[in-house]
């Protein structure tokens, strides 16, 4: 039996992983570290200050992406409109989150409620984007929502 070395095995795994999934794991890494940095910052800055500094932090990557070669490709009007909506929804959502906490909402209730936002995405994707999920993925949806509830309690 031919034994594979770890390098060739690792290469096979990387080739086998779909590109979108690779980027998902990368996003989990960046958001995971972001969560850690946020925990460290929470005693030093107010949520409002955090939101302003966070917006400043978007600038470096914004400058880099503005110089990207593929910046001008595609159906710009629609794409740009949806991109702007993503930012508007995200930023207003952040503000509303802090408003919920400052209008009497306890973190122990606000955080679990708002952590269910992927459910809105799933329902929207199934209805509006006509996405189809296989039964294994549907089980994954249920498991993920359970995990999100437990994380946010």
């Amino acid at each position, binding site marked *: 039996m031919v034994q594979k070395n770890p390098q060739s095995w690792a290469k096979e795994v990387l080739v086998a992983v*779909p590109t*979108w*999934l690779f*980027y*998902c794991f*990368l*996003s*989990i890494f*960046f*958001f*995971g570290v*972001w*969560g850690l*940095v*946020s925990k460290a910052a929470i005693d030093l*800055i107010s949520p*409002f*200050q955090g*939101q*302003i*500094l*966070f*917006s400043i*932090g*978007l600038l*470096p*990557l*914004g400058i880099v992406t503005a110089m990207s070669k593929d910046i001008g*490709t595609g159906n710009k009007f*629609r794409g*740009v409109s*949806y*991109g702007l*909506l*993503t930012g508007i929804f995200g*930023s207003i*959502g952040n*503000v*509303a*989150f802090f408003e919920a*906490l400052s209008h009497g*909402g306890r973190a122990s*209730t*606000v955080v679990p409620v708002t952590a269910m*936002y*992927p*459910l*809105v*995405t*799933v*329902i929207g*994707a*199934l209805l509006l984007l006509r*996405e189809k999920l296989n039964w*294994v*993925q549907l089980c994954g*949806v249920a498991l*993920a929502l*359970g*995990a999100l509830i437990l994380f946010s309690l």
Partner: protein
Amino acid sequence: MATWMMYSLIVLVLWGLTGITQKLSTNHISVSLTFLTYAAAYAPVSALLLWKEPMNWRISALAWCLGILSGILNALGSLTIFAACRNGGKASVVTLLAALYPVLTIAMAVPLLHERIQLREIAAIVLAIAAAAALSYENKSFKLK
């Protein structure tokens, strides 16, 4: 309905909708342009916040670094989500998978911030790992040779 609940539901809907709009955006334009427009949209909202409540800029250097670093990391996280959507990832799956990031935060918080992990969090991590495996499953299974 209590005011805080109304705001919470607004958050739920708006954050949930970002999962749809980011997919729609990357269907039409590049990841770079999607990110640029996403980031640009933060500017007017931040300007409105600053106008409503001027910020106290006298914070420690560490606070500055952590605040800006959180923005950079969130930007990188958002960029990779856009890339996942652009490369064939479904909005429903990508958004859910990315939302499971607390697994990593907790795993790092234990050794780095000396936090204690609770049983509830262990259960959440187990569920999250199972969820990630299930969500990643596609009918065209990827097999090692």
